[in-house]
């Protein structure tokens, strides 16, 4: 059962034929070939499949493809599109991740970057260390790169001109 859907992917309006049973993640990976978003659990419990959906970080592994209709989706591959409001934040985060060596296997890194991008681009001048932790809370990391990831997000936030409130670190 193929149906034609319209959506905006990484700043580009597209129309594509998809199977009704496909999840948004399957469509994004297998049909659009955007493999930065990864399959980790299929239950919205690990965060590896997050994309920006109208500027918010959301899991896609259980989302029906139909739910993408008329919406703006940004994945890590959106970096090449400098018109997107998320791009400067994403680029700052990517350099900070490299500077802090904030990955071991890197399988879940895309998810971290998407949620961190949403946090920074939607912030209002100041973010707290606690907010960084909370933004990353939906994301699992089995390698134990957490502290480097937190440091990298902090670094990128400062680079993007945000202030950091360090009063609280743990919830």
């Amino acid at each position, binding site marked *: 059962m193929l149906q034609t859907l319209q959506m905006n992917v990484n700043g580009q309006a597209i129309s594509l034929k998809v199977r009704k049973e496909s999840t948004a993640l399957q469509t994004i990976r297998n049909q659009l070939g955007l493999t930065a978003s990864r399959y980790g659990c299929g239950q919205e419990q*690990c965060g590896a499949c997050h994309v920006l959906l109208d500027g918010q970080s959301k899991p896609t592994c259980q989302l029906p493809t139909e739910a993408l209709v008329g919406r703006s989706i940004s994945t890590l591959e959106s970096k090449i599109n400098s018109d997107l409001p998320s791009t400067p934040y994403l680029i700052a985060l990517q350099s900070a991740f490299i500077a802090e060596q904030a990955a071991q296997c890197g399988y879940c890194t895309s998810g971290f970057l998407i949620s961190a991008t949403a946090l920074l681009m939607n912030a209002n001048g100041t973010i707290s260390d606690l907010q960084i932790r909370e933004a990353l809370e939906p994301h699992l990391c*089995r*390698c134990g790169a957490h502290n480097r990831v937190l440091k990298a997000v902090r670094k990128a936030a400062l680079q993007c001109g945000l202030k950091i409130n360090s009063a609280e670190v*743990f919830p």
Partner: protein
Amino acid sequence: MSQLLPPSVSLKTNPLLAQWLRFESNGTVTVFTGKAELGQGILHALKLMAAHELAVPVASVQIETANTKHSPDEGMTSGSLSVQDSGLAIRQACAHAAQLFKAHACTSYAELLAHLNPALPIDLAVPTKSTALNLIDGRNDLEALVRGEPVFLHDLGINVDLTPIKNNWGQININLLHGRMVRGPGLRCTLQVDGWLEALAALQEGAQAFRDGSLVGVLAGTEELAEKAASKLQRLLKWDVESLPVCREGGVDLFELAPAIDSQVFHESGQAIEVGKDAKVYEAVYFRPALHHGSMGPSVALAIWESDQANSGLKVWSHTQGIFPLRKDLALAFGVDAQQIEVQHMRGAGCYGHNGADDVAYDAAWLARHVPGQCVRVQWTREEEMQQSPLAPAMRVKLQATVQATFVSSDQQSLTDQEKNLMHKNQVASTRTGFATWQHDVWSQGHSSRPGRAATPAFKDSWQTETNFPVLEPINVAAAAGAGAERNAVPPYVSQHVKVNAHRLLGLPFRTSALRSLGAHANVFACESFMDEIAYDQGLDPVAFRLRHLEDLRAIAVIKTLATQVNWLARRQSMSEKEGWGLGMGYARYKSKGAYCAVVAEVEVTHQVNVRNVWVVADIGEVIHADGAISQLEGGAIQSASWALKEQAHWDSENITSTQWDAYPILRFSEVPDVQVHLMPGNSENSEALNSPLGAGEATQGPTTAAIANAVFHAVGVRVRQLPMTPDNLAKAALA
């Protein structure tokens, strides 16, 4: 300065220069390794070592990903041995190449090409460059990772061009098919075949199903169709099932339920002596439940058979830990010559032991055999990864020790003033107690079900076929290879008599295998908790108590450095002013011959255990790439904290049920402690010579869990001997 390296195992099996290095006409050097990138950054470390030894820029060295066609056979990438095995071999090869470069007055490594005899063995007498390498370049593979580039096997065939497959045997019409397996519950089960034809008839168009005995799988043109077909068959097919023993708390009863136990004396040293009346006997039992590997990316593989001929070639893409062992077992499973099989390694999600990589490679090859010339991709689900890949076995450890006041430990005289200062005042002044006896008993299933070791294949699904391959009983590798359940069961502390008994549980319906540090996790947790308990009972400071029973100077140095760094005595004292806070310590030398590692944990016990800070000091010998080693130690500490606080597998009467993250929670960002890592200098004994480099990947597993348990005791006076330290187990321990 230069140094002669210790011999590498890998060099013995792969002695030729050409097995390790290829000089390219553009002057760059290609390095071959049999070790696999598992997310630990090993390829980067190997590349740095090669560039350093060859005296060329890092950019002039490339590493060829492991492939059975051209890589040296280095067995498994496991046991924190890659730097010792592959690293030392590559350094030796590069040192030899650098010498040839000089001898032939080359100006570029391209010129060496003409001078090289492919049968030239590596000259082991050539000294390597030495002086602590401590290379600082960051991992250059991270760039592709943070860009989300399709570097994982999970992306192959989707975003990655399949040209390598096309070129493999010339003209092959590539048609990527997606496969899914259909299984009954448990370790092994029998398909009720009378339902098979009916199930087949119900399949939708575009999907094919295959069966061999009780092994069932489907193929379709898209993942969605394959999933749909698999779930349809899953609903329709019925199985005769072997039931699982009742699961209480991650397998706390398995030791009573095992059909058989193979008990052996693993180690005995010193003289069994008669203890005096003043001796004090200690005894405690500790438990670590069965754990999941919990790799973040469920396993995946691609496979293609060249033809339908009996001797057809097979190519498999896998994120296995051992391309050659996988090839061996694929050959056994399909009855083909190993030479006909090519296994290409490609990066998967972080791997911490025997996960589903080998099993899914078998699945892909089995399905692909039904469609020769077509490439099959099998992607496991999260549920399959948790249910089908091996568990880390549940372990029970019983410790018994006798402390005798009249016994003078041999290390007492050698104490420096500084050491004495670090010790508790009372202790130095009054007694000279020591261990007269120490007995460690460990009960566990075997810690290895890896491929490549038996006469029949190790893949779980291969046991379901008509061929009726036997279910393999998990084994423990030999002591020389670091042992399995017995790893780190021999205490590092001086005792007049030491005995270690290992009890391997046999015949349980669980496939158990290697998880990061194997038995060392439970053994060190037990040993270090026990030391803490005895120190407390004797009214001694636990750090000072350890120091007085250690003889190894590097062990002593690691613990003393850590105590100084955390300001141990003062910080521990200060904890009493903060309700629920505590500080604890754990130490081990991994495998009793690897990296030295001491850990201090600071916890805040509320309704649960919160680990706030972790400090790690490690002596890993010569430091190759400090940040890489620190990253491994830090990640290991966080993973160990997750095991210690949250993790335990569970099952019902038929199947493993901890199949999703909500049923098997692991540490999340809000719970992760801050971790500080300090590396000792490579010549920690203040000698001129460097100590051999040691792997860092598994050293923190045992000490971190122990440090947390000891910190909990310090915080609230509750001794948790049963992991994980959940609110339930904490409450239970408080009432005990």
